[in-house]
Structure formats: structure tokens, C-alpha cells
């Protein structure tokens, strides 16, 4: 866990879900991001997604094996970021 600015936390996570960051986890992510007090940003290299935007998150096209950086900034960033990392790190439903 690295701190860039006061109240800003960054963590990296590797997508292990065989389907990548597909619509379902992206929807869960965006809905949660809309309900926390801090701003959530996800980076795939130079590509940036507003965590509240399902369209942005799908636009990252994060396939299995992709490394993403999650950035939380603002109130409760430190406590909130874990939930977002957990969504991205989830292997998905067994099929």
C-alpha cells in the first residue's frame, strides 16, 4: 500500500478472473464506488477509469492477468480501498 498524497491510497491488483473485469464485477464495483465518500480511480497503464463509471471500467478492457492500480482519495480512503481491491481480485463464480 502506498500513499501518494494525504488521504490518497494506491494499491495494485492482478485480475485473476478468467473472464477479466467483465460487466458483472464492473457493475458491482461502480455501484460500490458511488456509495463511498472517497473518489475511486482505476488505472490500466495510462488508461484511467472513474470508479463510479461502469462504462469507464468496461473500457479498461482488463483481461485476466492485467495489473490494475486502484486509487482512493478522500475521506475513508484507507478503509474503503480494500473492498475495491477485493472485487477486482475475485476469481469470479465457478462455472
Amino acid at each position, binding site marked *: 500500500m502506498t500513499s501518494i498524497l494525504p488521504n490518497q491510497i494506491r494499491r495494485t491488483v492482478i485480475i485473476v478472473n*478468467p*473472464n*477479466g*473485469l*467483465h*460487466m*458483472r464485477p464492473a*457493475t*458491482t464495483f*461502480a*455501484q460500490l464506488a458511488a456509495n463511498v465518500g472517497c473518489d475511486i480511480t482505476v488505472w490500466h497503464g495510462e488508461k484511467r477509469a472513474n470508479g463510479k463509471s*461502469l*462504462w469507464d471500467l*468496461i*473500457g*479498461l*478492457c*482488463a*483481461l*485476466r492477468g492485467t495489473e490494475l492500480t486502484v486509487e482512493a482519495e478522500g475521506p475513508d480512503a484507507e478503509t474503503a480501498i480494500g473492498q475495491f481491491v477485493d472485487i477486482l481480485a475475485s476469481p469470479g463464480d465457478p462455472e
Partner: protein
Amino acid sequence: MNFLIPDAVVPASQFQATNRDDAIRELVASLFRAGVLAETDQPDIVRAILRREQLGTTGIGRNIAIPHSRHAAVSKLTGALAVSGPGIGFDSVDGEPVHVMILLISPPDRPGEHLRYLESVVSTLRDEQLVREIRAAQTRDEILEIIANHKPGGS
């Protein structure tokens, strides 16, 4: 969006469904009529897509829905598009009715391809002007031409 089957593109004037389940049935039927699905595969594909909707809406907001499923009936990603004039209740993430539906069926073994195509749909339909034109189009050919002329990043 080269996965769209041209004969499975349905303008608002020809789209009958008024609810989500019927809309999905009509989209799948359009792929059958286009000759890319066997009639006997239709019910199972519809069931698979409806099951997916039960896990969470594919109404991604901005009046767009992307109902989808994997299914062994296709050997490559196959898509249909339909426009609803009055709009369809899809329980969308933004609560708005859906006017443009893109239905995707992917082969079971190519998840990466599915995500790349999903990204291409989202990137194309971010262009609000393009979506307005698709909604207003009177014919299938008009919709196909609007999409073919779209320049990436032109939103």
C-alpha cells in the same frame, strides 16, 4: 462492431417487444431469421441470456443494454441490435428505459474476445450523437451505415 449480423439489426419501426424478456426473445429470433442460429437452439439461448439478467442487469445506462451469454451454438462472437422507440424497462443501472439493445452470444471458450468486443460496444456507444442517430434511423441499412461511418473517439 463487425460482430453484428447485418440481417439481425432491427430499427425501431420493426421492433415489437415492449418488455425485457420479449425483447431478448425477439433479438434471438432475429439471429435465427438471419440464418446464424438453428431454430432448436433459440429457447436455450434465450434461457441462458435471461439467467444472466437475473444475476444483474445488463442495462448499462444511457438507454443502452447489452444482454449476453456464452453458448456453444456459435463458433464466433455473434451480435444482434434492436431499437425500441418507447423504450424497454431493463432495471438499468441508471433507472432509465433502454432504447438500444445489443445482444451478444460468445463461444464458451473465448472470454478475452468477449471482453474486447464489449469494450468496443461501449467505446462506440459513448458517442451520444451516434446513439441518437441509431434511434432515429428508419431502416436497417441506415443503422448499418451510421455504425460503419462512425469514427472511433469521435464522441
